[in-house]
């Protein structure tokens, strides 16, 4: 009984650490990427913690809501942030034993993220303005095309590990370091990078800094939001970015994730994770600097490429083992 109690307690502490880490780290990651970009362009740019200041400002502002909107517009920020937070809490980010680690299935995580996307798309349509519909239509199109690539890449990893349970995959990868250099993993990695770029709305799929109607996707959906609602949505988007980046590094470079149940290991894992993820963010940011935004109707080609790579990952796994 004490064993279950202590493991529950540990799981709770671990999950709480993950949520706090991603809630603060996600916005910082965005700030870091913006910083790298501005530096690469020869500008100074805002400090890395600027997104956190923006969030604080948004949370303090008065809330505004469109007159002809329904409960969907009001509930969407909570659902988006809630589903993302749940995914963060149960994913193996700093430990392989978070709360509900048995249910921390790859498909659960994928469908939790999909739930967030669906809610956002519905919120975009709620006020019945042209901008919202435009963003919603574009976002859901890209989401629908990224989804198969994501699922198949995830399936490739699951076939290799013979389970779709995420903590088990991470733990098994630590014990089988060879897995990280198999062609399956590498192909799945490229596919997942493409998906993560699309899902988090980074260049070359979407430009997070634009408000030009011809090009914006995510920003168009959130135009009707202001104040704390916008703050929650922005935090949700930042946490989504944080979650996807950290999952990506943990799936391919799992070292440093705590497998035991000591608090010290947890602290070390946090440090490792921050370092790994920052490195990934710098790399993605440098890729962003060197790429121009794709035309909307060229994005499906990029995602189809990701899908093909993911299918190849499955095939190589079936052929090479």
């Amino acid at each position, binding site marked *: 009984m004490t064993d279950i109690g202590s493991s529950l307690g540990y799981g709770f502490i671990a999950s709480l650490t993950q949520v706090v880490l991603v809630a603060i780290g996600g916005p910082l990651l965005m700030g870091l990427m913006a910083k790298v970009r501005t530096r690469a362009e020869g500008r100074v740019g805002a400090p890395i913690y600027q997104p956190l200041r923006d969030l604080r400002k948004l949370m303090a502002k008065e809330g505004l809501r469109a007159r002809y909107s329904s409960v969907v517009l009001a509930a969407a920020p909570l659902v988006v942030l809630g589903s993302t937070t749940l995914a963060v809490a149960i994913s193996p980010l700093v430990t392989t034993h978070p709360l509900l680690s048995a249910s921390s299935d790859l498909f659960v995580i994928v*469908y939790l993220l999909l739930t967030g996307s669906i809610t956002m798309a519905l919120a975009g349509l709620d006020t*019945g303005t042209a901008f919202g519909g435009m963003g919603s239509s574009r976002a859901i199109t890209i989401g629908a095309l990224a989804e198969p690539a994501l699922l198949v890449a995830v399936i490739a990893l699951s076939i290799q590990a013979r389970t779709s349970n995420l903590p088990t995959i991470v733990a098994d990868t630590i014990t089988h370091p060879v897995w990280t250099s198999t062609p399956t993993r590498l192909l799945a990695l490229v596919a997942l990078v493409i998906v993560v770029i699309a899902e988090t709305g980074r260049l070359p799929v979407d430009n997070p800094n634009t408000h030009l109607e011809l090009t914006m996707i995510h920003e168009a959906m959130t135009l009707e939001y202001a*104040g704390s609602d916008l703050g929650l949505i922005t935090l949700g988007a930042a946490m989504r970015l944080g979650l996807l980046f950290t999952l990506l590094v943990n799936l391919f470079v799992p070292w440093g994730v705590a497998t035991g149940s000591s608090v010290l290991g947890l602290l070390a894992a946090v440090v490792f994770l921050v370092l790994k993820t920052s490195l990934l963010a710098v790399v993605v940011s440098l890729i962003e600097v060197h790429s121009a935004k794709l035309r909307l109707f060229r994005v499906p080609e990029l995602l189809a490429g990701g899908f093909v790579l993911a299918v190849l990952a499955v095939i190589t796994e079936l052929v090479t083992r």
Partner: protein
Amino acid sequence: MVLFMAGLGCCVLGVVAATVISLERRVIVVTLVGSVGCLLTFTAASQVLVSGRAESFHSSLVLPLAGINLTLDPLGALFVAMTSFVGVATLVYCVGYARGELRSRSALSLLLVFLMSLLVVPAASSVVTLLFFWELMALSSMLLIMVEQRRRVETRVAAQWYGAMTQLGAASILLGLLLLSTKGGQTFGDIRSHVAALSPTLRSFAFVLTLIGFASKAGAVPFHVWLPKAHPEAPSPVSALMSSAMVAMGVYGIVRVGNDLLGGGTLWWWIIVVALGVVSALFGALHAVTSVDLKRLLAYSTIDILGLVLIGVGCSGALAASGHPRTAHLALIGALLLVVSHAAFKGCLFLGVGAIERATGSRSLDHLGGLIRRIPITTALFVVGALSIVAVPAFSGFTSEWLLLQGLLHGFVGKSSPTLIMLLVGVVALALTGGLTAVAFVKVIGIGFLGQARSTAAASAHEVPRTMQIGMGILCIPCVVLGVAPGIVIPLLNRAIQTGHSSSVSRPVETGIGLSLVHLRGTIEPMLLLAGFVVIVAVIAGANSIRRRPARKVEAWRGGGDRPTARMQYTATSYAEPLQRVFADVLRPEIDVEVTHAVESHYYEQSLSYESRVGDAIERLAYQPAIRAVTRVGLAARRIQNGSVHRYLAFGFIALLIILVVLA
């Protein structure tokens, strides 16, 4: 069995009641009697599912010569229970819904005949019984499609298509089952004991023939053409019954014949099933995305989901044939759970469309909008069904698709390459349809229920009668319960798949607070996930509302322009346009752009009309030419029929001569 027969008796009583009772009380009495019948059959089926003991009934009085054979075994009982559940919900809904033609004697009695035949088909245990009630099901549903034929001519075309396709399918099933009963005995028990003596070629012929018939009932591409025509034209309760129960009978038939009567069979049979499933899933999902008519969209999504079910059934058969019984069972459980939850959510959605039609007079998404403020209860119930079909975690669609995926995923073992390729194709199809289904239903909710009303009828919609809401609500229960606590039905499903050859392996899924696979690594606990989600949302909402005034209501942002009108919103067509463009090669939309230039200068346009239609490419490319060819043959045959009796006598004489020569 007594309960089951009593239930069927209630249905017959309902038919009688429909014909004798006067108009004022007809609907309420008939639906009441029918509901009692459904409750009785539901109880009977549940008893069989819980105890696992099959019960039989035989009478030589009902059908001449062959008699009627009924056996309620766990597999059949699963489908009986499912049909009864949907039946109750539909009948309750009918109380509020029935108006005009649906209240007539013929329509109400046909509805109960249809329901009764749906209940008997899975319990039939002889070839004659099965075919008799299969035909009864087809005929009664065909006539039900035509209930509104005086007002709407389209129903006749739909019924024609449906009639032709279902008769071809039934003929195919008849041939296949006849082949199986050649060794004597037409009851399923006889067939089971004789099947080993049949040659493998004969067995394969029988399987393929029955597969064609059953797959066409399950709406598998390329036999699906009737489905998007018939479902939209029928009255909504009939659409709901057809889509959730009748279509499932196709799956039942494949499992019964392939797994049970033929005892598993060979690998290539199941490869055909998976191929049918993959094509159906992708085709259905893509068309659902681009459809604007709500019922047509739901009909295509039925093709999509049944395609996924066929993938599961086919992969399960293939895994069993290549010696992996445990994963085979897992995939079959996933497929059957998907059938059951499809019955719930698709029934709910079809009834919901009926409610929308009642409230607004239209089922075209481009005439709706803003319904969430006008008919909030219907909206909420519809959304539950939609979330379930999109497979949001803690709804039934997610649980069943998760189990199906686990079955396929853990099937990737060994070196039997045809099976592996099939699993790969199945998994890829599942992945591709997931996102597309989400788009289709975000479109339905976002365009239909949110935003501003696109027509005056939608702007003045009124909530539908309470009984209609209750009917939908009944079907929402399994959507949630199977999602949150799937452990309730998994033991029953375990029992249902033990029917027939594969009773050797014990349960593939353990149930506790959630589901976990036996001897394989995989667990989900939807209840805990839901609890976690609720706690997190409560914490966020609580923290967000501290010292905060309620949000101020303002006009929507108009980008510096005039007040946005309803016409400026995205429509269902424009919402799906990007995807339609991406998949233009498959969907083959017909687009007409007509530009009238100004007289003064060619560079100025006076008017521009744009029309885009997404038809059914398979119907256009395969069925229309076939129909034309048949018509041509028919016209040519007129030439030899000139009305002369002498000539006809000569034909008869020559035919007799040929037969004698052949026999000699």
